[in-house]
């Protein structure tokens, strides 16, 4: 680990001021300290934002939305009564990530910005375009069994590892940030970006921009769930996951539908084609299969991860069937 300076900010403005080039924000540290110890991240200064006053969850009265402070710990988010009741998909996504210990440390802001678990990215003895643009991407010819099937580029085939972000992408969350240039709101999906020719950039945030809160609109009516597939029953990242919400009217017609996939792309993947294929249709396994196929027509699996296409398809159909048989 390189030597670094440590500073704790008292408020967001001060944090932004302290976050000079080469500095990084420190949330719970569960990803940043991990990567610093591996030599992947080498900040000259850490600006600790874990104790900023962004530690509250404010819920609008029943039927409304919620605003989650960026410093809220993952476990507190999942344990919050309003989140459990109004956004069960989000609570479940958060609970399926990491361990009890990791969730106690991890912040909402840090979770969104955690970096890929691509094995080459985490090993500085290997080349990697995301770490060093121009190095090449060894995963394309190598071990990409857990990497992307959609939206990847010749430069990078990594996936975004967060479970929470998948639920947020499905829920149309809005990410509030402040930065040297002032405040702005970034919609989800839209915070994370596909690798394209610039895999070094995971998100659309500018250097020094600080996440202060996540705003959730009122949840659309319907049942929702998060399902995560992994070979180990717990404490493992997703092979593929799905966040799904389905609102079906009394005639059995799909009126509301939100679907996002994890483990398939460089971003939490909002399955807009699948949603489009379902809205206004009669709910049922055939419609779900058609919707899954519409989405996965976009898939371009690599030689060793074609199983993810089957898995994603089966998982979408099974999950939607569970929500509305």
């Amino acid at each position: 680990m390189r030597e670094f300076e440590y500073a704790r900010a008292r408020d967001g403005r001060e944090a932004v001021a302290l976050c000079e080039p080469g500095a990084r924000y420190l949330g719970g540290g569960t990803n940043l300290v991990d990567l610093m110890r591996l030599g992947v991240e080498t900040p000259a200064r850490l600006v600790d934002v874990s104790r900023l006053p962004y530690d509250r969850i404010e819920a609008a009265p029943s039927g409304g939305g919620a605003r989650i402070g960026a410093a809220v710990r993952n476990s507190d988010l999942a344990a919050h009564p309003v989140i459990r009741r109004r956004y069960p998909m989000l609570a479940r996504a958060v609970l399926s990530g990491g361990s009890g210990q990791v969730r106690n440390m991890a912040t909402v802001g840090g979770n969104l910005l955690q970096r890929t678990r691509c094995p080459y990215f985490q090993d500085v003895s290997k080349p990697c375009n995301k770490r060093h643009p121009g190095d090449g991407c060894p995963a394309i010819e190598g071990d990409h069994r857990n990497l992307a099937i959609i939206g990847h580029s010749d430069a990078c085939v990594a996936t975004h590892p967060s479970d929470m972000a998948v639920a947020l992408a499905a829920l149309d969350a809005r990410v509030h940030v402040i930065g040297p240039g002032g405040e702005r709101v970034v919609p989800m999906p839209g915070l994370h970006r596909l690798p394209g020719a610039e895999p070094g950039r995971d998100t659309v945030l500018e250097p020094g921009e600080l996440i202060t809160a996540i705003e959730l609109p009122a949840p659309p009516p319907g049942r929702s769930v998060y399902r995560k597939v992994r070979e180990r029953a717990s404490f493992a990242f997703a092979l593929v996951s799905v966040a799904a919400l389905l609102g079906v009217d009394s005639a059995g017609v799909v009126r509301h539908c939100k679907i996002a996939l994890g483990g398939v792309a460089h971003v939490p993947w909002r399955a807009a084609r699948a949603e489009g294929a379902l809205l206004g249709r009669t709910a049922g396994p055939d419609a779900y299969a058609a919707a899954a196929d519409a989405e996965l027509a976009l898939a371009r699996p690599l030689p060793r991860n074609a199983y993810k296409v089957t898995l994603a398809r089966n998982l979408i159909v099974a999950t939607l069937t569970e929500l509305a048989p």
Partner: protein
Amino acid sequence: MAEITLRVNGVERSLSLDTRVSLLDLLREHLGLTGSKKGCDHGQCGACTVLIDGRRANACLALAVACDGLEITTVEGLADGEELHPLQAAFVECDAFQCGYCTPGQLCSAAGMLREPGPSAVTGDLTEDPALTAEEIRERMSGNLCRCGAYVNIVAAVHRVAAERAREVAGR
């Protein structure tokens, strides 16, 4: 270097430290509290689990400087003098360890877990605080790997203490 002050097992400690030192290395290499173990140094095994302000956390991923002003409890601080913590006693009785290397982390994790009433990934109804069944315990303790494979007995030991607590609460 940075100056920090924190409380460890009730004792206030002030130190001047390299900012790179983790809470785990602070405990093990600077304070001589070697009960907390290092199994991976990356949050992946749970051997380093301690309680930070009463909540279980991976000491290997916590920077010591970031713990300034906080209250740390390690396995050395669980017992009340010579009187073992109920979890410690149950671990001995249920043979919930073999090599013992994961054990301090399991114990601190279980101690923290018993204070986390909310749902887990296996809870059916999210709106209720579930009873700590074996299935719930298994999921909640999954951040603590045990290569000796003592899980069955770990779950039995934690279950025993959880059930005692539940009875006490019900009796009140």
